[in-house]
Each structure stands twice: as structure tokens, then as C-alpha cells.
């Protein structure tokens, strides 16, 4: 499933330009950067509460497909700037982690 479809089906607000055609290999949910560095996989979509610029560095390092910021969190200005630079799609939702993960799990399971 491509990122654009997920954004569409989950009603995510896309904050960056481009990159929505990337194929998503799965999802990784964590708010701890070390955990994501250690355990996420290439092409994963990352669901997190963290809005700090360092999330872009982690996503770039791990070649993640994109990041979903939950619970109405807005990215810091610097984070958004870095996301554009590094071509990491950044999306937001008002839903909490549990529900976004739940819906995405269902969506992935259906196809």
C-alpha cells in the first residue's frame, strides 16, 4: 500500500510536499528514538508523539517511508524544514496512537 492511500483512508493531514507514492512495508509505533533506531525497518511508517527535529534524522537514517504525528501534535518549525530537506513525508492526526495504530493495522490487514 502506498503512503498516499494510507493518508487518505486515515484522514491524515499531510504537512510536507511529495513522497506520497512510497510503498509502505509496515508500521512502527514508538516515542523513543533509540527504539526506532534499533527496531524499525526500511519502508516503515512511523507513528509517534515526538515533534522534535531529531525524528527526521532518525527517519532518514532508517529510510522510513514517513512519519505520522498523533494526538494533534504539530511539528516544530525546524522539524518541518528538515522534513522537506530530507524528503520525509510528515502527516498529522488528532487521533491518539492507539486508534491510529488500530485503524492502520485493520487497513493493512484488509489488503
Amino acid at each position, binding site marked *: 500500500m502506498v503512503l498516499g492511500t494510507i493518508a487518505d483512508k486515515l484522514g491524515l493531514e499531510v504537512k510536507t510536499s511529495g513522497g506520497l507514492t512510497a510503498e509502505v512495508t509496515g508500521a512502527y509505533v*514508538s516515542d523513543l528514538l533509540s527504539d526506532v533506531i534499533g527496531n524499525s525497518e526500511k519502508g516503515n511508517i512511523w507513528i509517534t*508523539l515526538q515533534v522534535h527535529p531529531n525524528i527526521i534524522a532518525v527517519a532518514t537514517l532508517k529510510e522510513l517511508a514517513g512519519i505520522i504525528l498523533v494526538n494533534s501534535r504539530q511539528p516544530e518549525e525546524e522539524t518541518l524544514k528538515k522534513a522537506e530537506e530530507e524528503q520525509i513525508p510528515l502527516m498529522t492526526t488528532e487521533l*491518539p496512537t*492507539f486508534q491510529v495504530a*488500530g*485503524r492502520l493495522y485493520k487497513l493493512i490487514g484488509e489488503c
Partner: protein
Amino acid sequence: MTVKEIVKILDCRVLTGERNLDSEVKAGCGCDLMSDVLAFIKPGAILLTGLNNPQAIRTAEMSDVGVVCFVRGKQPSEELIALARENEITLLTTSLPMFDACGKLYTNGLVGWSEYKE
């Protein structure tokens, strides 16, 4: 959903609260940042977290959350288990990552905190 059902769905190991398996869990919350848990979680919810330190238990204690489940096979320390027991918190651990744990509970009908009405 009861704790017992959660244990079955997530294939959990039960570390404390063996006698509370019939108690009802009202909503799910998956989070590693404790301030967010404190701000949003409802009493009676389950906290799923990858944060394997005593503050996860303290946070549950402060917010009247009776069940904590560590994800991705985290094995908590003896001190942490003792803290959970002392505060009558049911402590579970599952080898599933957070995404699958939230996903399985959600698809089995457990609601998130923003969907749960007291």
C-alpha cells in the same frame, strides 16, 4: 474487554495481578511519553508501553490505571515488578511490537481513550 482476553489476544506473560484477570479494561492507550499518558489516559484503561522503567508504573499509579503491558518482549527489573505489586497494578508483557499490540486489541473491539466515554 477483560484482562484475561487481553492476555490471550496478545499472548502475554502475566507478571503481577494474577488474581485480577477478570477485571474489565475500558480503553487502550499506547504511549512511551509519560506526560501524555498523565494528560489523557482514563482511569481503568490499559497502558501499552515500550518504556521499561519504574516511571511507567508510577504514571499508572498516579492516573488510576490498573493494567500495564510492556511491548516487544521487555523484561522489567525485579524492582519494577515489586513496585507494580505494591501498587496493585497488573503487569503484563508481550513479545509483540507496539503496532501489532494496539492493532490486535483495537480490531478485537477495545476502544482508544478518545472514543471512550465515562
